[in-house]
């Protein structure tokens, strides 16, 4: 039938899009899973991890910045992750003037973390960097960020 011939390419296109989207989502979820894995030991120390999270794909080494309201009196940990092997992950936190404020950070395998004890209640900036900015041929890498407070 004519209708079938016309729509066959559309079916194929839809299948390709669906498959690609599923793969992309799998990667994004994996980045969040890595970030949550980094968070796990801290839950035992009394940190409440927000269910909300931030994720996506970015060019290797390109930093991402997220604005965040923090409250003096709370202690925060930010954890970032990627599903890409051997890609350095880093989290830094800055105040509204661009001054670094994290008091502790770590990088380990697929994830990294930064701890903050805000000295004032205000808007802060969380910077996530995944991959090496010095590489000539850059690939697209997934990233995910979660945070906890106590």
């Amino acid at each position, binding site marked *: 039938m004519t209708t079938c011939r016309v729509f066959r390419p559309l079916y194929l296109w839809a299948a390709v899009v669906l498959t690609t989207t599923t793969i992309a989502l799998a990667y994004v979820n994996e980045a969040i899973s890595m970030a949550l894995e980094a968070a796990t030991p801290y839950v035992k120390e009394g940190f*409440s991890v927000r269910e909300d999270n931030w994720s996506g794909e970015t060019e290797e080494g*390109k930093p*991402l910045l997220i604005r965040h*309201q923090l*409250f003096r009196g709370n202690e925060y940990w930010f954890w970032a992750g990627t599903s890409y092997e051997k890609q350095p992950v880093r989290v830094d936190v800055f105040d509204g003037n661009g001054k670094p404020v994290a008091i502790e950070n770590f990088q380990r395998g697929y994830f990294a973390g930064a701890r903050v004890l805000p*000295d*004032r209640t205000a808007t802060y900036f969380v910077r996530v960097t995944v991959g090496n900015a010095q590489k000539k041929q850059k690939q697209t890498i997934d990233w995910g960020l979660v945070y906890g407070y106590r």
Partner: protein
Amino acid sequence: MKSPFSLSLSLFGIMAISAYANEVEPLDLASFPGELINEVVVPVPAEIFTVLDKLGEPNWEEAIVEQPKSESQDRRQIALQFGCLIADGFVAVQAKSPAEIQTIGRRVLNLSESLGLASSVRPHCLSIIEAAGDKDWNRVRRELDLTELTVRETMKELRDDELSNLVSLGGWLRGTQVVTQVVATSYSNDKAELLNQPGLINHFEGLVSAMSQKPNAPSFLRKLSTGLADMNDVIQANAPLNPDQILQVQQLSAEMLEQFYL
């Protein structure tokens, strides 16, 4: 004079930050080479309530209100109410009131039915009710957070970012009103500083202002836009807010909530 709370935080903070600050270059916000994720992270009310608990023993039961039965058919109004109801769930957790949490859990389900999201929200509501019965407060907080996230994400998937943002606004507004109530009852600089949230107010004011300028925007959105602008003027003035300014913010948030919730 700084309180012991302030001093201990400051001393520990200064010692630790000075060690770390040597390793990281300051951030030049004017010429940031990367991507600025275009949103402000809106905290859950529990984040600010946790600090209030450290600063004293607020009477959370006083902050519990009888939630109105929703009569509205306007999805924007229902989204705002939904956010408020989640915030009230967090208040009920602070008050450790299983009965109140269970009532809120059932109301959350009713509102999600009005939004056509009952199937996604039902498992969380059932968990809220069950965890409240077990007095498992951490689990209740986690499920309230998950419920709000589920609704906002589902709305985004349906390309309804406006409703998703209104859920966040409702929660923030009700949370702010409760915080002002607690701070007004026993004022201190440490408590008042918690309302230093200019980034969040700018974010919400911009969103609601754009919505209220659309043709046929309902009157409650225009009143919300005016209220947020007035609140922005008070909060931008200085930090921490003085007792009179706390009362002003409390009054403004109550007036805005009366448009759709209280």
